[in-house]
């Protein structure tokens, strides 16, 4: 049995039901992601993916069971403390429209340093950290001062990745981050993400319905297999 401290994400005997629904939407008996592990979670739409993200983000709480991030049980925290925890330890990359369109690319990357003291401190000099990340993610300096709205979708996703990584959060959660990209760019983006999370020694939970993208991950898990609620509903 793995000790919980070694796990970035640990879920035990969890059930979740949205308000005013009679059946559980999510029921996970056991799911873990180790520190620095990069996991591909295969989840077609309707498999409880958004619910899992809401639970991992701490914006929803399970009715029963445990959910721990970096050894911290989220159920033990107040709503405000969960917001703080998310700001400090979790970086998110969504499908698209990740950025505040009226901020420059660089200022978007710096956003987590506004909401989290811990990440600002860990970034050292946030401006330099942002510049370093943007350079690594292959975004030309000429674009840094541009409003995010003027960047291409691919550029926006790279800025979003830089934002999720700044200040070295322990966990990176990516929800279909490549679905708005064309096929050749998809793999390039995943490679960047894998390299950067490895460099930051962060755990990566990459959620996608497209199983073809799973090639370079440490482990692939199908949400349908983990989620007993979905299995029951399907049968």
């Amino acid at each position, binding site marked *: 049995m793995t000790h919980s401290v070694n796990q970035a994400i640990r879920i035990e005997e969890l059930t979740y039901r949205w308000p005013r629904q009679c059946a559980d939407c999510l029921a996970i008996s056991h799911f873990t992601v180790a520190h620095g592990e990069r996991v591909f979670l295969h989840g077609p739409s309707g498999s409880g993916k*958004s619910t899992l*993200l*809401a639970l991992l*983000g701490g*914006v*929803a709480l399970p009715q029963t069971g445990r959910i721990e991030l970096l050894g911290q049980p989220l159920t033990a925290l107040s*709503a*405000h403390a969960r*917001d*703080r925890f*998310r*700001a*400090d330890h979790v970086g*998110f990359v*969504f499908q698209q*429209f*990740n*950025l*505040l*369109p*009226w*901020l420059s690319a660089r200022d978007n990357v710096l*956003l*987590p340093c*506004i*909401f*989290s003291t811990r990440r600002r401190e860990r970034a050292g000099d946030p401006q330099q950290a942002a510049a370093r990340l943007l350079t690594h993610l292959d975004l030309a300096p000429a674009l840094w001062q541009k409003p995010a709205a003027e960047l291409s979708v691919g550029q926006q996703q790279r800025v979003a990745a830089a934002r999720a990584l700044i200040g070295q959060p322990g966990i990176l959660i990516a*929800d279909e981050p490549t679905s708005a990209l064309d096929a050749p760019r998809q793999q390039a983006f995943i490679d960047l993400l894998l390299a950067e999370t490895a460099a930051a020694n962060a755990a990566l939970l990459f959620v996608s319905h497209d199983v073809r993208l799973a090639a370079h991950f440490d482990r692939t898990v199908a949400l349908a297999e983990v989620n007993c609620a979905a299995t029951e509903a399907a049968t």
Partner: protein
Amino acid sequence: MRAVLLLALKSAWARRLTLGIALVAIALASALLLAVERVRSDARASFTQSVSGVDLVVGARSGAVQLMLYAVFHSGSATNNMRWESFEALATHPAVDWAVPLSLGDGHRGFPVLGTSAAYFDRLRYGDRQALTFSAGKPFAEVFEAVLGSEVAAQLGYRPGDHITLSHGMAELGPEHADKPFTVVGILAPTGTPVDRTVHVDLAAITAIHLDWAGGAPLPGLAIPAEQVRKFDLQPQEITAMLIGLKSRGDVFRLQRHINGYRGEPLLAVMPGVALDELWQTLATVEQTLFALSALVVAVGLAGLTATLLAGLNERRRELAILRALGAGPREIFMMLTVEGLLVTALGVFLGAALLAAGIVTLGPLLREYGVHLALRPPAANEWGLVVSILTTGLLASLVPGWRAWQISLADGLTPRN
């Protein structure tokens, strides 16, 4: 916290066009409300203080308001005059300290001409018992000398030594008393009262220019040259009204009763302070209606702000979800929205006050012609009160979108629903 507020500012700046329109609406509404308040307090002050230091105003029996209108504001006309004998009898009454006759009816290029005695300049007070002062020259001493109110002099460009002629009646093109020109000997300092718009001459001069007149026109074949008028008795038969100062203010009601029951002819005596207050009261409904209307306009402006923020919120669901993912709590989201609304309100009120100041500078001189004197000054206590109420209402109006954003951020979590 400061960084979050800065973020709210940047977000608002990105929507500056729509917010700007809401801001302009609030600015115009605030300017209107502040202007109505300013006009009503300043106009009231300049109106009710247009005469002080006078205990009674006396004229032929009519209404108190009408008497005040022609005796103090020189507007409208007396239906009847009072006899000179009545003036003399009252002026020598033991309770009376001083009495000044007033005779109206002629004009000079649209400004009323007041025939009176030189004592008028010593006795009349305005505002907080301030005496009339001369900015140039001195009171009239001869029959054909005139003293001008500050605006008459300023508008017509007169200086002491200039010659003017009076016209019969107030019409600007009425028949002229062209044969008897007056010399300007003095110009009064501005008072902000009807005095500024008046040409003052000796009571004897009014008689003098009408010696060869009858029924409002020169008598044919009878022309009395100006230098010969001294030979005539220039004592008037009638005057329009008189001002009375008492030895002791305690006698005012007794003398008022005495005059109102005067046996010689039907007279009316009014206490100017009381009458002016009453006169203002007749305007109170207008004033209150105006105030209520402009308060309503402010409410409409703030409702517009709420609508703008609420409408914008649907397009900003993604923005809210992103902020949530970054660690913003519903409380911070609520604050960002509320601060935005409050900021727009505050800027609007500030802009409104600036608009009012600009309006006073540009339109002030125009309003002076109508007797409304607006001074450029920092907001008074009552205006600060209004500013605070607008801000409070703005805060309440901003709580609605704030509360809605709170709800959205709780319902949407990290994934916006559209």
